[in-house]
């Protein structure tokens, strides 16, 4: 096979298998949820194998498909992360799909297509490839947000997500056109060379700013976050879980690649922009989360706040900054999926499951899962010995090294504030007895619980023995044109 095709093998395999799942779904209708989900999981596993093979067979420095595509360690890490998060989301969806009797085929295929889009984004070294990957991911996610069509809230979520998402794509695209026009290229490497040659034109800076706005929207940073709470609350919980990890991580992959790679010579112009966004995001996300009674909304604001922390890593830049964001995305993914898994478990257990008070006394009735949720909340708050602490330590260390001590002070103070709302949930689960809050119906959610267990174990393991995971998130220096 040609090296191009070998490098693209994971995407090709996943897209092909997604179509198979789609067709199988059409053939089997509403039945066979388990079988189809199993098929989707096997597809993701096969893709992971293909990824392993492709990574071994491809020169990380090669630029394939006429300079569009790179399979460096940065890309491989993010692709593995996307496959992991999509697999967990599918596991979290199985019980949900079955209970609500929706067609599984299209749903699973859309998640897989979105994953293809994300993988393209992580590998793209040309703005055209990144843009089409982004749109593939975004369009799939719009549909998924509105997939559960009997729910009014789901519609509201899809509508808002679509309008604001399309708007941000328009802004991003306009920025892209300006950058293209003033530098004459969409290739990130050529872009760096063109920008390094001299003082950038005004139009280039404007284009960069518009691009940054579009990217900040995709990672749900303030002031482009307004869609997040409504969409997260309204969308079906498995989809909310998906949106909070996969597309967000993909957004950061793109952000790192474009801003630290292609636009690095403009860093003097964008660093204050992104830095200001990081500060606003951390403050607003955490402060707004303090008053939320709806757990999904609270998690939405919390995910906004976490985007702020990750932006700190972007501002820090350098190899340490990039590595810390990579590691943080892994930490955030397992923690957040675990937390959403708990919400899903409660919903499927017939609790109202959305307001904080529904969590009263759960530690007694579901001690295992509640302990998992305790770990997730501590991890999101950055308390050792959980993964979240290691993630933040690494992230903040990178920023201190780069000299952004004030930014880190804001970040640590806000993460102390965040404990207030994470502990509210813990407080309900452990410190209240929750008499009178009984489940309406008991439906088994075995897969959801298994995901909670797995994520809980991962949170502890990464928190106590972070070295191998840090090593995996490393070795990206040089990839983005850094050393």
């Amino acid at each position, binding site marked *: 096979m040609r090296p191009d095709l070998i490098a693209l093998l994971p995407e090709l395999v996943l897209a092909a298998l997604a179509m198979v799942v789609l067709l199988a779904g059409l053939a089997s209708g509403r039945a066979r949820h388990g079988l189809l989900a199993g098929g989707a999981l096997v597809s993701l596993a096969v893709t992971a194998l293909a990824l392993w093979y492709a990574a071994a067979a491809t020169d990380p420095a090669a630029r394939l498909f006429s300079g569009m595509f790179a399979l460096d360690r940065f890309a491989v890490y993010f692709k593995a992360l996307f496959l992991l998060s999509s697999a967990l989301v599918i596991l979290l969806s199985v019980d949900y799909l079955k209970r609500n009797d929706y067609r599984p085929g299209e749903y699973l295929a859309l998640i897989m297509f979105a994953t293809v889009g994300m993988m393209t984004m992580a590998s793209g070294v040309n703005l055209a490839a990144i843009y089409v990957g982004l749109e593939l991911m975004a369009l799939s996610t719009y549909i998924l947000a509105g997939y559960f069509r009997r729910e009014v809230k789901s519609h509201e979520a899809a509508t808002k997500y679509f309008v604001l998402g399309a708007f941000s794509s328009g802004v991003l695209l306009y920025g892209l056109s300006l950058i293209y026009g003033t530098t004459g290229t969409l290739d990130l490497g050529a872009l760096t060379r063109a920008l390094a040659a001299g003082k950038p034109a005004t139009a280039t800076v404007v284009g960069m700013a518009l691009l940054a706005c579009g990217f900040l929207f995709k990672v749900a940073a303030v002031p482009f976050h307004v869609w997040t709470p409504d969409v997260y609350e309204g969308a079906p919980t498995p989809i909310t879980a998906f949106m909070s990890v996969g597309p967000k991580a993909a957004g950061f992959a793109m952000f790192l690649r474009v801003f630290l790679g292609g636009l690095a010579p403009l860093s003097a112009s964008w660093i204050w922009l992104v830095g200001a966004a990081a500060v606003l995001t951390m403050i607003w996300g955490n402060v707004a989360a303090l008053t939320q009674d709806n757990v999904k909304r609270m998690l939405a604001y919390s995910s906004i706040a976490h985007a702020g922390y990750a932006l700190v890593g972007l501002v820090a830049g350098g190899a340490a900054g990039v590595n810390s964001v990579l590691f943080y995305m892994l930490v955030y993914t397992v923690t957040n999926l675990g937390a959403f898994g708990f919400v899903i478990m409660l919903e499927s257990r017939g609790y109202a499951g959305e307001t904080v008070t529904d969590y009263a006394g759960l530690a007694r009735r579901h001690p295992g899962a509640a302990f998992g949720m305790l770990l997730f909340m*501590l991890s999101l708050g950055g*308390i*050792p*010995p959980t993964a979240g*602490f*290691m993630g933040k*330590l*690494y992230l*903040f*260390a990178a920023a*201190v*090294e*780069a*000299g*952004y*001590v004030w930014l*880190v*002070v804001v970040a*640590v*103070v806000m*993460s*102390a504030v965040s*404990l*207030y709302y994470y*502990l509210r949930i813990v*407080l309900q689960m*452990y*410190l209240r007895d929750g008499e009178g809050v009984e489940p309406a119906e008991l439906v088994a959610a075995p897969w959801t619980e298994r995901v909670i267990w797995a994520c809980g174990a991962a949170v502890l393991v990464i928190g106590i023995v*972070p*070295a191998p995971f*840090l*090593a995996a998130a*490393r070795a990206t220096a040089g990839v983005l044109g850094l050393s």
Partner: protein
Amino acid sequence: MGFATNLLNIICYVPLLGALVIIFLLRKEQTAAIKTVATVVAGLDFVLSLPLWFVYDPAGPAFQFSYVHDWIPAVGATYHVGVDGISVLLILLTTLLGFIAVYSSFTAINHRQKEYYVFLLLLQTGMLGVFISLDFVLFYVFWEAMLVPMYFLIGIWGGPRKLYAAIKFFLYTLFGSVLMLVGILTLYFYNSTGLQAIGLPGLGHAPTFDVTELFKIATQIPPHVQFWVFLAFFVGFAIKVPMFPFHTWLPDAHVEAPTAGSVILAGVLLKMGTYGFIRFSLPLLPDATRKAVPWVVALAIIGIVYGALVAMAQKDMKKLVAYSSVSHLGFVMLGMFALNPQGLTGSVLQMINHGLSTGGLFLLVGIVYERRHTRMISEYGGLAKVMPVYAMLFMVITMASIGLPTLNGFIGEFTILVGAFNRSTTWAVIAATSLVLGAGYMLWLYQRVFFGEITHDENKTLKDVNLREQWTLIPLIVLCFWIGIYPKPFFRILEPSIRRVVEVVDPGYMNHPELHLPAAAPAAHAQEE
């Protein structure tokens, strides 16, 4: 790699292991078995920690029983534990109070017992970890991880305002410790690559969080860096101590916590703040420490007087003891920031004394609380008639607390005053005057509770302390007398470690040989292993 190398790990993780046994092997109905396991584990831990006392060699290297293992090579964090004289005493205090806390909870805790003992044991591991860590990341992990079980102890088994108190405790201490993290990172990068973007070049050493490595650069850190790092550490430690004006979480947490929680909180947790100062701030940031002396001492003296005055006005016994802690810890800080061997030695000794006497006071309050379910002083009176043994025990602990000669408090306070006097007569005079206040509120408390007529009928039938309750107190009382009558072994074990701190933080001081303590051993050269 024998017993000695792993001793600290064993001491630290035995409680964790016990907690896991209780979680996985026992059902929550098996309360007797749970109590037995918890007591045995806590007792075993205390026994295991005793070799430290006998084997630790004051004349030997600075840190002993060391164990180093790779942990996060990517950032230069190692799993490094080890103890010096200061930490040996604090570890012994922790294991002893840990055992007493478990043993004293048998009848006080009646619901969710399994979780209770699990959290108590986890807390034990966290506290021990703080005292043995010689790596900043490891230290920080234990420092914060320990908040969680304490949060639950207050929040689940606490008094009426437990939720408020638990969250206040958690957020206050967390807020301080996150700033400390920024300080740690600054030190870390100063030692290695520097903070390039703000024009601070580093020293170019291999990146490490190892405290013993960082000690070596203490004198090379420029003053302005020291200042900011000191400030960051100060917020973290001062909240924990707690120093005035960061103390407001303490009365709430103490009053709402269950008896064992209060014992641990007062006995060990507060010491973590003072330990942080003496372990990190003083030897790592000597210039900033010297500059901060007037400010810290001022706060310490305000704390001493304020704590005593407020304690006097309390109607609730636990709250009274809580405010007395603010006063006593002000004393500890005063001694420490005298920055001479006497002050520092007295300060460490007073940490132990406060752990013993205040731990004892909380146990004593807990005993009557279990019987009457009130802690209001006005609810009692004339208890000496119905509970003579209790009254006697209470008297001894009270005397220990106010510093009567032949008891431990006297030795600690006296040494601190000597140290303070060497620095400034004014400090010593103010501090000494406040001792009168301390005696005042404690004796007044004693008088109101034990003397006079029995005004409440319920009190007439109160049972005296039973055997188990006596046994929770007797070790404390024995130790109080021991330190009060024959403190020399304690001085001996502390002296070289204290000397090492003073050599860094006030090198000029050591040039005056006549100021040395009589018990001083020949100055062992500070050497790192």
